[in-house]
């Protein structure tokens, strides 16, 4: 998605100005989201909306405003949702005991392998039944089953998909993740799920990691941690998924067994921020960070980065993409998401029930 935008011929000077302006916009919207959350607490005695919702809502409004004014592409440089999110997740590592990560992560990997495999093949064959383009099928199956936009990017690299397909799937992922981020935590509360099961359900279902963290935060602090660890377990599988997808593509689809991908692809695609997350957790677990330091500095820092990420997902939604590929992929994505929701709930219930 970014490659398409980066290909525009623009002068370095205007890039730097654009990057500074867009960064200022992201920060201003994050501060506004925080102020609105706190103001509603002050005036109403409770949060009117949780901070992820304020942030995404403000991001969406700014997105529409910038698109109407024709400035969205020029100001897109600092809409770095992934960077803000991953930094927030590294800091979140410092709020979780390492043994808890091992406990949740082990079950999260089992859940990820079961759900990802089932949802990937379900979406793959469903999209074939709808006669979608083969490369678009690969992107959709990877994004709905693994971890949204990052998985779509990895799959696009594995099958050499077109940029238009990637942009379309990225828009689809965010368009589905936003309502789920809003609905799923309330659904989990109304079903009276424990924080562990709710978090595992959210982490195993919602495609894009930013929306997973947002939905977890809307439910509870405990659910946010479980959802994040479960999602990170899924993210960690992305390298293997990209490798096997590329292998399948050259051997079965294109029948070029001499061009097999290298095992180093697994490392290339591995989300390296996971190391930061684990190191940060170890720093806390061995006592280098006290609970007081975590509470007064790490948690607020984490929240600021996550708020910037939530603003970013609102800003990055490309509404125009939906008019390009028709409604068939939307229907496939909808059915696949329903399937994912049910399977992830079943897996979370079996694996995370206390």
């Amino acid at each position, binding site marked *: 998605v970014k490659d398409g935008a980066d290909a525009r011929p623009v002068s370095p000077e205007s890039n730097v100005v654009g990057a500074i302006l867009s960064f200022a916009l992201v920060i201003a919207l994050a501060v506004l989201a925080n102020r609105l959350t706190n103001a509603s607490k002050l005036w109403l005695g409770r949060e009117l909306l949780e901070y992820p919702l304020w942030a995404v809502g403000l991001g969406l409004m700014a997105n529409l405003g910038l698109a109407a004014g024709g400035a969205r592409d020029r100001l897109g440089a600092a809409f770095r949702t992934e960077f803000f999110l991953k930094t927030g997740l590294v800091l979140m590592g410092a709020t979780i005991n390492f043994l808890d990560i091992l406990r949740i992560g082990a079950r999260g990997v089992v859940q990820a392998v079961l759900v990802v495999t089932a949802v990937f093949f379900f979406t793959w064959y469903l999209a074939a039944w709808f006669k979608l383009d083969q490369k678009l099928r690969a992107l959709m199956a990877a994004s709905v089953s693994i971890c949204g936009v990052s998985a779509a990017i990895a799959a696009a690299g594995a099958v050499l998909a077109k940029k238009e397909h990637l942009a379309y799937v990225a828009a689809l992922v965010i368009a589905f993740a936003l309502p789920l981020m809003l609905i799923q935590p309330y659904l989990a509360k109304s079903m009276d799920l424990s924080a562990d099961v709710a978090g595992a359900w959210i982490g195993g279902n919602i495609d894009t990691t930013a929306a997973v963290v947002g939905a977890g935060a809307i439910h509870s602090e405990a659910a946010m941690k479980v959802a994040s660890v479960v999602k990170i377990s899924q993210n960690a599988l992305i390298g293997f998924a990209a490798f096997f997808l590329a292998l399948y593509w050259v051997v079965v689809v294109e029948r070029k067994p001499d061009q097999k991908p290298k095992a180093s692809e697994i490392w290339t695609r591995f989300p390296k*921020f996971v190391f930061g997350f684990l190191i940060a957790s170890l720093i806390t677990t061995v006592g280098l960070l006290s609970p007081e330091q975590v509470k007064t500095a790490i948690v607020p820092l984490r929240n600021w980065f996550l708020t910037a990420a939530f603003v970013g997902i609102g800003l990055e939604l490309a509404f125009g993409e939906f008019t390009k590929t028709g409604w068939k992929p939307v229907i496939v994505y909808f059915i696949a998401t329903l399937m994912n929701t049910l399977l992830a709930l079943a897996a979370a219930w079996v694996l995370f029930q206390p």
Partner: protein
Amino acid sequence: LGLATTFFTCRSRLEAPGHIFYDAAHRICFDGGRVTEDWLAVIVGLFLAGLVALNMLTWVPW
């Protein structure tokens, strides 16, 4: 943080040997010289956690 983000957002468009961003990226030298969002997140996240652990950052408003 502002510096880091500006650095990162500029690198994809200003990549050329001799350019300050390009050279800085190669000095850090991850993933064949490209500073990815993942590694930058690790650097910024652990740097901030380090500041807190060393009591150089004791309180952040929220």
